């Protein structure tokens, strides 16, 4: 038995059920990774949370960096100095990191560098379902895809070995289904790096890509890719899997979770087939693929999102002058574009339908859908969330002034949903202020505002804010100061500190002092900064009105900072400690059933039961924010005096 209190630090030979994200961490541990850095983002957030927890015991330095680009530059430079390093990010995180990511293949990364990408077909929790495999081609970096937790762990070790051998970056692309799926993982031995920690500025062409120095660096990166192509063609990480006892009715080329779902689909269909499962997805093992294609009457490429494999394979066939193969991709057999195949995930149900159609057999899936309409259950702001009270104020002020508000990314993006309808344009993190600036050029007489969370402010918000001050763009900004990066599961950010009540902090983040957003804004030259308690709608409304007047009069940016620790984080801690405030109830002797609390404030704890408003005592955290939204003078919403939470 291992001595560690963390199962993922167990001895070689141990078996544990791990989610993919934990398996990645185990892989880093075995591969001898010494430095890791990341900015949180689903589906990869748990990698950071796990690393943060084991940091001390494992000896792996881990930090939450301010954004993905910073994290990537930090990890890559540690590797240049000889340290085995790792960074990871969600799909759209690579857009942020891309400016430096595209340089990596030109550099000599002595210590080794593995980059984990969490793509999100669906999408489940992203503003886009972009296909990041293209980035590998763009940046000349090899890309591997695991199909379960065991492979997630093994591929990190494999990728790090080759990264160190050829001193180049390697990408592991996973998807939500790999990051969040669990499976048994058998542990291997931990390696320790013997690479010398030393900076050699001129190593293999150095690290300064300029017009005059670029050519040899580009040649090096192209040659490095050729090494991977050779490796792939020799059969590395390729597997041919025969399903069923009969002769294969079709050949299938696939990778990742789609491979696992294809196995299920073939079982349900009762069809015999041969699958070519790819582990190295870029560069492709074209020789192997061409051999495979020639053995079957029909081959289907099963890949989620864009026809990445399909396009490359078609080029490979053209170059080899091979014709007469029935290769089915994302267009119909008549080569018509089928947009449906570009969208969302390929789960088992969908694959059964697709394959049944191609093979012209009956779809055996039998299911029954509820005939009763099932009301949607969208995500919503938690009970007691300070964003809700602020949206109530913003909505009031915006409607009164006939203005608009622009969105940004965080829990407060949910303000877009009814009944608040606040935040109406959203590109990506930090886009709120610039979109407001742009809109102000189109509608100079319209009052405009935007929202931004603390994590987003530090991530990509500041350049847009500085721009608005510098170029004098009239607008109001509300900073949602909840002291944490809430939406991705409560990771620390530079604003996290004592005020972040109940924050689940480990290691160096435990006694961190919060960086002052107020002073930063002051330093930039923001002339109106007002900090208000988020729960007090009157104060928030007054501050917003003052800010709008100031912005109008001085043709500038005015900022309101609303402050309240994330209610989910605080209330969870208080529930555990037994100190959570008593819930509220409705005194029906006074209530006139106006239902403003229910339909306009819309806290999840306020429900309608038998045509009356009731408060769900389990959900209510006793903040009392709803009370100020009841128009009656004598308030029927009251706090329970005796209540025991169980």
């Amino acid at each position, binding site marked *: 038995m291992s001595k560690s209190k963390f199962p993922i630090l167990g001895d070689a030979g141990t078996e544990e059920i791990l989610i993919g994200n934990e398996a990645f961490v185990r892989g880093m541990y075995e591969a001898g990774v010494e430095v890791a850095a990341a900015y949180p983002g689903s589906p990869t957030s748990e990698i950071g949370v796990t690393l943060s927890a084991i940091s001390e015991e494992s000896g792996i330095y881990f930090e939450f960096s301010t954004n993905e680009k910073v994290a990537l530059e930090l990890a890559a430079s540690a590797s240049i100095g000889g340290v085995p390093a790792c960074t990871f990010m969600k799909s759209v995180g690579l857009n942020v990191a891309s400016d430096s990511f595209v340089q990596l293949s030109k550099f000599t990364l002595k210590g080794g560098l593995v980059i984990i990408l969490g793509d999100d077909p669906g999408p489940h929790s992203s503003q886009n379902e972009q296909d990041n495999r293209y980035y590998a081609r763009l940046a000349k970096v090899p890309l591997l895809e695991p199909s379960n937790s065991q492979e997630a762990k093994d591929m990190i070790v494999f990728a790090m070995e080759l990264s160190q051998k050829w001193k180049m970056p390697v990408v592991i692309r996973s998807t939500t289904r790999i990051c969040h799926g*669990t499976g048994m993982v058998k542990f291997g031995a931990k390696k320790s790096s013997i690479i010398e920690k030393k900076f050699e500025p001129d190593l293999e062409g150095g690290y300064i890509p300029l017009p005059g120095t670029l050519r040899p660096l580009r040649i090096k990166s192209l040659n490095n890719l050729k090494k991977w192509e050779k490796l792939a063609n020799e059969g590395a990480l390729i597997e041919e899997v025969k399903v069923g006892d009969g002769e294969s009715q079709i050949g299938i080329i696939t990778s990742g979770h789609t491979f696992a*779902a294809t*196995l299920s689909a073939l079982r349900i269909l009762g069809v015999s087939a041969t699958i070519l499962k790819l582990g190295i997805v870029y560069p492709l093992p074209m020789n192997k693929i061409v051999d495979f294609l020639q053995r079957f009457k029909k081959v289907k490429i099963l890949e989620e999102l864009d026809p990445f494999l399909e396009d490359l394979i078609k080029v490979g066939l053209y170059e080899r002058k091979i014709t007469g193969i029935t290769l089915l991709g994302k267009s119909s057999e008549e080569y018509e574009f089928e947009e449906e195949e570009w969208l969302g995930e390929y789960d088992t149900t969908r694959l059964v339908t697709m394959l049944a159609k191609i093979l012209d057999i009956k779809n055996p*899936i039998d299911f029954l859908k509820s005939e009763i309409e099932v*009301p949607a259950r969208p995500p919503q702001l938690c009970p007691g969330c300070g964003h809700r009270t602020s949206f109530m104020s913003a909505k009031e002020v915006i409607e009164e002034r006939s203005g608009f508000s622009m969105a940004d990314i965080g829990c407060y993006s949910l303000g877009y949903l009814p009944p608040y309808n606040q935040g109406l344009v959203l590109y990506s993190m930090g886009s709120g202020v610039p979109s407001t600036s742009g809109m102000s050029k189109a509608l100079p007489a319209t009052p405009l505002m935007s929202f931004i969370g603390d994590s987003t402010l530090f991530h990509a918000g500041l350049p847009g804010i500085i721009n608005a001050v510098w170029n004098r763009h009239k607008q109001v900004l509300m900073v949602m100061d909840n002291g944490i990066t809430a939406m991705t*599961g409560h990771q620390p950010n530079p604003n996290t500190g004592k005020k972040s009540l109940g924050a689940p902090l480990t290691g160096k983040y435990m006694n961190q002092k919060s960086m002052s957003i107020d002073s930063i804004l002051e330093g930039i030259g923001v002339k109106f900064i007002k900090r208000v308690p988020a729960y007090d709608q009157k104060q928030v409304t007054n501050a917003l009105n003052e800010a709008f007047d100031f912005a109008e009069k001085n043709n500038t940016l005015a900022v309101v900072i609303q402050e309240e620790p994330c209610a989910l984080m605080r209330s969870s801690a208080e529930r555990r400690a037994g100190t959570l405030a008593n819930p509220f109830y409705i005194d029906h002797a006074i209530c006139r059933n106006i239902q403003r609390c229910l339909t306009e404030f819309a806290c*999840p704890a306020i429900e309608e039961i038998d045509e009356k408003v009731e408060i769900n005592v389990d959900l209510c955290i006793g903040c009392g924010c709803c009370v100020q939204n009841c128009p009656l003078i004598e308030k029927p919403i009251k706090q329970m005096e005796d209540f025991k939470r169980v």
Partner: protein
Amino acid sequence: MSKDRLKVHISGMGGQGVGATSRILTYASQLAGLSVSSMETHGLAQRGGVVVSDIAIGYGRESPLCANGEADVLLTLEALEALRSMVKLRKDGIAVVNTTKYQPLSVRISRGEVKYPTLEEIKQELKKRTPNVIMVDADKTARNLGISLAMNVVLIGALCANTDILPFTEEQLKEAIKAKIPQKFVGVNMAAFSKGKETKIS
């Protein structure tokens, strides 16, 4: 059907313990020496949205996700979610439903236009698919034992007592509960399991 394979679909609302429930059943399968994998799906964070977890026991390298109509067991921690998940249930499978209701936003702000179905409607709808429907007031049972968090273990008890398709034994299940629950709550959870076992298909 063979007793070394099982597909389970668990559903509920964010924060209700879908993940914890899944970990208990997954671990019980591990104790029974079976291959097992699972998948939690929770969309945009877990802020009161739908959370589901699929478990595939004995399916090797296949995807843990249940195809439509494939789940042998449907375990739902919130009544409405049973209806949403019904597409996953196989004919004559077993559905264990917690009768607790949490109104979704779409119902609450509709001024009565969007209706939350009654428990009887939910039960009758499920009965179109299987006679094995168990409606349990698991929250009340758990609360009476002094800890509402044990609600999922009440449901697991109800499942265990009303079917013989589980590929692990009752002992393995109990051992899994003990292993996956904080030490100080093991006692009440064992009581919750026994209480759950008293439930009958109605």
